[in-house]
């Protein structure tokens, strides 16, 4: 085969290579959230109440333990799961019992949910119970918000003020 034909063939192959590389390095673009929608991130972490109350140990019980383990109170570490409910426009879109993290289930329960919803005005209602032994939902919030197109609304829980926050 003549040299120039080989070089032309090689050039064509390089051209194909860079066309492939150049195209797929940024195309086709991926529609993450459609342009007429908004994104809601419903996320918080909150520690449930301890499932078993601390017990004061008697002197006899303490005597059976090694000196370094003789605490006045014995506190089981397991926490209650959270009961969480999130409703939009009167329709419940998330309802879950969220288990605490940790091998001993002694860490806060995490919630991270994302919803893609139409932009516009919506009524939101969130409620949470952090003690599974009790009825009802002690933490509650509702709000009407007008979502812009592609807006990200974060619904969080402030553990200091003990209330839901819409940001």
């Amino acid at each position, binding site marked *: 085969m003549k040299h120039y034909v080989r070089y032309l063939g090689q050039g064509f192959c390089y051209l194909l290579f860079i066309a492939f590389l150049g195209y797929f390095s940024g195309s086709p673009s991926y529609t993450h959230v459609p342009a007429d929608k908004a994104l809601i*991130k419903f996320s918080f972490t909150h520690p449930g109440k301890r499932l078993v109350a601390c017990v004061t140990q008697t002197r006899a019980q303490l005597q059976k333990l090694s000196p370094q383990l003789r605490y006045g109170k014995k506190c089981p570490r397991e926490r209650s799961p959270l009961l969480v409910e999130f409703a939009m426009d009167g329709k419940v879109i998330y309802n879950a019992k969220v288990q605490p993290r940790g091998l001993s289930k002694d860490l806060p329960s995490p919630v991270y949910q994302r919803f893609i919803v139409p932009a516009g005005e919506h009524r939101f209602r969130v409620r949470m119970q952090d003690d599974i032994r009790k009825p009802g939902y002690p933490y509650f919030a509702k709000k009407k918000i007008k979502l812009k197109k592609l*807006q*990200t609304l974060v619904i969080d829980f402030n553990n200091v003020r003990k209330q839901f926050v819409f940001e």
Partner: protein
Amino acid sequence: MPDLKSRTGWMAPVELCRHILQALEARLNVFFGAVNPFYHLGDLGFYFFYIMVITGTVLFFYYEPTVAGSFDQLDYLSREQWYFGGVLRSLHRYAADGMVLTVALHILREMLLGHFRGARWFSWITGVPLLVMVYLSGILGFWLVWNKLGQFIAVRTAEFLDWLPIFASPMARNFLHNSDVTNLLFRLLIVMHISIPLLLLLFMLLHVKRVSKARVMPPASLANGTLVALLLLSLFRPVLSGERADLATASNNVPIDWFYFFPYPLIHSWPMAVLWTLLAGGTLFLLLLPWLSRPPKRAVASVHLEDCSGCGYCVEDCPYEAIVMRERSVQHPRFSYEANVLEDMCVHCGICTGSCPSSNPFRRRISYSAGKETLHSGIEMPQHNIDALRSDILQKLGSLTAAKPILLFGCQHGVALGPFGDDDVAPVSLPCIGMLSPAFIEFALRKGAAGLLVSGCRQGDCYHRLGDQWLRERLSRQRVPLLHRTVDSSRIACCWQAASDTTQMHKEIDRLRIRLHQIIEN
């Protein structure tokens, strides 16, 4: 087409894919020859890494690891200093994409050709963490730009990792608000983006540790062509930052780099458990592959001390570093060293036999154990010794009744030789064509062969890496053991083809017949 009917179960599609790959390589061979990019996928991976290191080092001096600075600096480079900083940035990105592409093809090709079995397990296993590190450093690199793509990748990566119940608080909560992202994060990211490639380099060296004469740089023409192509791409389609990351606004149309992030759109479409199972299962499959289809155990090369002079040619030629020279175990008045075979690393290719100066069919030695006249080489394969090869040649020549008999020496991994047997052609099959010592060529011609056709894998694509190259150099008298000066080279033809290229072999045999006819007529 390959004989797919003879293959059953999962082997049929593998055979078909191998055939498609070889057909594609054959097309590229027309233009590229020995510098066919498919024969250099591993070294191209190294080359793209070098480009990334050089461009990345320069970019590092311009980069400001802060929330605002990361975007501003890179955007400035791409827009205001497009002729230098912008080109460097584009080269960095496209080299990263090129590396992923070549690494993926390299894995696929080695898998189809069965280059993970036996002694090659080490290179295969060390390649798996390489793949992980290539992806990790790439993900961090995109994150560092902190544009809409970086935002998308940061959030999706965190959401993907959050499925594992190991974090007390979801990682994705670090990307709820713009105020959650701090300068400290970017300092951490840049340190990781530098340290992971350093670790990558370490594993790359480990990857080729057991490979003799490993190619860590493609041939000059391929390297230059690739660099020019990347430069053109960088100039005509420069990488731009697009929009700045803003966590208060959702990413809409994200210009995803599909080489790295092809699974990312699945993160919210498929159940996370399925994705993690695929990831873990795929990794485990790659790690266990060398042991899932083990080749039958064969005897490794053995050294005959009486015939080994300790010259070291076998050490030089072994493609797998499976032979070492040690002090002679039995004293010899002239020779101080002897060859020792490392059993775990020997792949039974027989290339050492081809390189041994004592692999000579004209020699004769009385075997002390059997008490009969047996030919031995200093190092040879027990199941393919040179005595058997010598007998095979004599027997095949005796069976040919034609006036101009041709011996066809071939490799077990190249074109199947059986169908080429004819009145005037007899095939002699070897584990690798590199096993053929030039003395056997001279022997065959002296014993009545009118001509010889030597067939092996395509140039640059030897199943045992270097067998074809060593024989070519021996035949052209550039490598020991040399083809003797008195041998008429015009009676020897070579055919370097893939297993599927039977047409070319027929043509070469016909050409040799015509040439031999002309030589004898004259």
